[in-house]
């Protein structure tokens, strides 16, 4: 059995760990509220944007349609945009996203496609570089970004559009985490380019009731303005949901770490008291038997 001093040291160290995890949990809870508000505030824009895109894309047919909308007509090269957090200590959050990304890569490679990866967030890069380093074409780290806003999304959107215009890929998918609730985050993969497929996945085509839109200037010019913005919007909402999910996962992870530390302290205290008593009893016995011998 460990000595009393050793036990006392263990207890102290677990206690300070508990304090740290408790503090991290509270920080995560505060940040979660902010991130959740941001994610929810961004939702109307994304929804309206998707609805408008659905309207427009049903009006656009034929070979003149922009390539961002209808794709290149091939699906040989896939770009996976893997968005994770930049920091760990949030349970299975990053691992789950990376696992889904690996599954997608395996599925696509199995189907004979070429896969390229763009990682957003340090943890995703770290998780994927071991197996798929040759496929990673670019990485974006978020650690310099104080708060995620339109400009962050535009920066990533620009990278994707530049790659697309250079003919580097045909289909783009975003792998990120869906913020279901504070305690539940689900990794998901959604199509980004061609935008038409993405819209078909998410939005129901609105019933226009035979109404004919008039456009100013015209459909093509509007789409030209709209499509890049649509890409940015999808990325922004993915990033915001990720941020909220990360905080939610971190809060849950730190909560259970705090609880585990508490349990461990209880157990150690019990052991400490038991060995202290054993020691006292032993000393008493020694004294008594010493006295009897006299």
């Amino acid at each position, binding site marked *: 059995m460990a000595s009393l001093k050793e036990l006392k040291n263990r207890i102290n160290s677990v206690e300070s760990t508990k304090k740290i995890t408790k503090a991290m949990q509270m920080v995560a809870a505060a940040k979660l509220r902010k991130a959740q508000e941001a994610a929810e505030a961004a939702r109307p824009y994304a929804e309206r944007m998707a609805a*408008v895109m659905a309207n427009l894309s049903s009006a656009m047919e034929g070979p003149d349609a922009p390539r961002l909308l209808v794709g290149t007509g091939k699906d040989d090269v896939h770009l996976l945009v893997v968005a994770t957090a930049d920091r760990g200590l949030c349970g299975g959050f990053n691992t789950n996203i990376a696992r889904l990304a690996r599954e997608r890569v395996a599925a696509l490679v199995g189907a004979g496609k070429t896969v390229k990866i763009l990682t957003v967030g340090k943890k995703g890069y770290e998780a994927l570089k071991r197996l798929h380093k040759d496929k990673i074409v670019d990485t974006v780290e978020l650690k310099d970004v104080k708060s995620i806003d339109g400009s962050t999304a535009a920066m990533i959107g620009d990278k994707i559009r530049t790659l697309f215009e250079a003919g580097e890929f045909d289909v783009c998918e975003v792998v990120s985490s869906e913020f279901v609730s504070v305690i539940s985050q689900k990794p998901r993969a959604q199509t980004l380019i061609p935008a038409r497929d993405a819209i078909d996945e998410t939005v129901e085509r609105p019933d226009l009731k035979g*109404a*004919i839109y008039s456009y100013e*200037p015209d459909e093509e010019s509007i789409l030209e303005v709209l499509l890049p913005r649509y890409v940015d919007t999808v990325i922004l909402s993915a990033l915001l949901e990720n941020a909220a999910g990360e905080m939610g996962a971190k809060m849950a992870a730190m909560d259970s770490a705090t609880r585990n530390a508490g349990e461990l302290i209880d157990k150690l205290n019990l052991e400490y008291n038991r060995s202290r008593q054993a020691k006292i009893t032993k000393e008493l016995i020694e004294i008594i038997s010493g006295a009897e011998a006299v």
Partner: protein
Amino acid sequence: MADKLHFDLVSPERRVFAGEVDMVVVPGSEGDFGVLANHAPFMSTIRTGAISVHSGNDVSRTFIRGGFAEVTAAGLTILAEEAIDLADVNAEDVSKSLAEAREDLGQARDDEERHEAEARIEKFQALLSELSH
């Protein structure tokens, strides 16, 4: 009073306005247009400028930059990259920001910084001209 128009103004960060109004005047890229209730379906890009929201005798003006307007049977939706209530800003602050942006332009080291400063100058100039109305 005739029917009310449902009007949504959303920016990527938040929903700026949602409610029933009488009329909204929008600076379309090919000219200003007013939207009343029961407008025909219509879609337009927007140039940087101010929208006027008419509700009863009140007119509130909001500066918007980048985006587009969509009119459906359900109402008018404006998706703007940026929306600033003109009642929240004063000309002095904007002039100051404009001067700062000009200074940044002078000190810009590469094209990226230059473009960024130019975009800011453009925005503040437009904002200033709307404020003087």
